[in-house]
């Protein structure tokens, strides 16, 4: 395989006002690095008419206004004009190391009222609660993609021992800050939301705040470690948050 023909990207329409740039078909560090590089390059020099850039596991979605390249398109379909623009923008792209992102050490109180499913999850995995906590807080996770809710990030590299499908019956209300696992991912509910993941703990940190810029704490490309704290520390931090 020739490494000199630039990045292995393919383009596909996503309806008439968006397109997908595909960087691979499986989640591996090379694909992740390429997704991060595409996102960074387009964010830094966006072609006219781009309204949103949405990195995901293996692809980047670009939302655009088909009317914005009007003159440039000169009879060509706006999609083709946009792809041509992107090809010349991305031809010399190199994957960014997925291990250069920011790292967050997020405090979590595990189990009890703060993580109601810890006992059931431990039982389903054939582990003790303490062992689940050890495993969960030992790993460094990678934020592959946002989605599901404002400020939510799918954190991958969950230890296979903790892999369980979603709960059969989703909860109507999951408290904000809940740390949960399902389907090989872990994640943090940024707001009070309905949800079907297994709740194992809770962080006092605010993952999403519309008054902040950027509003989400985590972005695709970031790394996350979970640091175990005592319930008293959570309560003190939660009180401090509410005073602000």
């Amino acid at each position, binding site marked *: 395989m020739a490494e000199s023909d630039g990045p292995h990207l393919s383009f*596909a*329409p*996503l*309806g*008439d*006002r*968006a397109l*997908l740039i595909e960087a691979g078909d*499986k*989640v591996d560090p090379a694909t992740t690095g390429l997704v991060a590089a595409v*996102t960074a390059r387009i964010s830094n020099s966006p072609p006219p008419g781009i*309204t*949103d*850039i*949405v*990195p*995901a*596991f*293996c*692809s*980047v*979605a670009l*939302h655009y206004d*088909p*009317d914005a390249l*009007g003159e440039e398109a000169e009879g060509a*379909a*706006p*999609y083709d004009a946009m792809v041509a623009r992107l090809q010349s923008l991305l031809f010399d792209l190199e994957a960014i190391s997925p291990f250069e992102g920011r790292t967050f050490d997020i405090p979590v109180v595990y189990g009890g009222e703060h993580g109601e499913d810890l006992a059931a999850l431990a039982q389903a995995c054939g582990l003790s609660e303490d062992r689940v906590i050890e495993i969960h807080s030992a790993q460094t996770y990678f934020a592959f*993609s*946002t*989605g*599901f*809710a*404002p*400020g*939510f*990030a*799918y954190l991958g590299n969950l230890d296979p021992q903790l892999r369980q499908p979603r709960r059969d019956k989703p909860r109507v209300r999951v408290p904000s800050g809940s740390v949960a696992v399902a389907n090989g991912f872990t994640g943090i509910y*940024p*707001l009070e*939301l309905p949800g079907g993941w297994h709740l194992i703990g809770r962080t006092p940190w605010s993952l*999403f705040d*519309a008054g902040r810029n*950027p*509003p*989400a704490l985590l*972005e*695709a490309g970031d790394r996350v470690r979970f640091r175990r704290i005592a319930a008293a520390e959570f309560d003190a931090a939660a009180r401090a948050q509410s005073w602000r």
Partner: protein
Amino acid sequence: MALNVRRAGVLTTVQDLGRHGYQRHGVPVAGAMDAYALRVANTIVGNEPGDAGLELTLEGPAIEFEEDALIAISGADLGAHVADTPVPMLRPVWMAAGAQLEFGAARKGSRAYLATAGGVDVPRVLGSRSTYLRAGLGGIEGRAVRRGDRLPVGAVAAPCYPKLKAVALASKSRFAAPHWAASVHPEKMERSPQVLRFVPGRYWEWLPAESRTRFMGSEFRVGPESDRMGYRLLDTRLDMPKREDLLSEGVAFGTIQLPPDGNPIVLMADRQVTGGYPRIGDLASVDLGLAAQLKPGDRLRFERVSLTQAQQLWVTQERAYAELREAVRGHMNE
């Protein structure tokens, strides 16, 4: 200047053209379901197309005007009236201070838009005034409009349609509208089954040929669990070979997904930013307004177009919108 809400209606929310630029932080776009209808109403009253108006759903509110106000109503016909006099749609209407504008149940379509000159002036959240109910963002404290709310309206530099205003203030019915109306085609809203054009998506070819034929040849019904986030379509099920390894990727307004139960879902204004079900197609953006006017129980079918056709239709629509703006401007000093 403000609008005082005397009755809230089923679901009345503040909406503009959506919260763009924050999807990478997981924030849905939201915004008007029938964005073209909101743009038309805004244009008629001299607003920018992206100013905020009210989206009225299925059964509308009662609104009292604190001061004289210039309004326009577009989208669904919710039987707007002041006292017993019907208020016409798609044209400027001057309301005298104290007039109460009441809406009833939808006669045609399901979502109407009320634009007021100056726009609903709630604070922007992440660049937009749109209400996103699930996360409590934007609009009035992130929620639907309630009885007793006072909705502030922005200042207007130069009032439009001065003669019309004089007629309204002298009128017994407390409002006045001209004879002309913006030319859009509301009759399309009444087709049954509704016909929505779509562009095949990435997994279209994965559908067995028989399912592709059924998708284009059969009718669907909008299911009861349909809302601003998406429509569940019933009555025609499709078969998709099972795939375990699909990873979530970006989705768009009008993306048609096929979950394992075989009943397609059309993603609408409040859709999440990514989705993991196979994407069999995407609605042509010019038909999103017609989709937005469907309600549970309505019937529809799909008609295939190419990507190039869909984009051409969009560009043509934008030209028509620019012409409409020009035409309306020609009346504004009357």
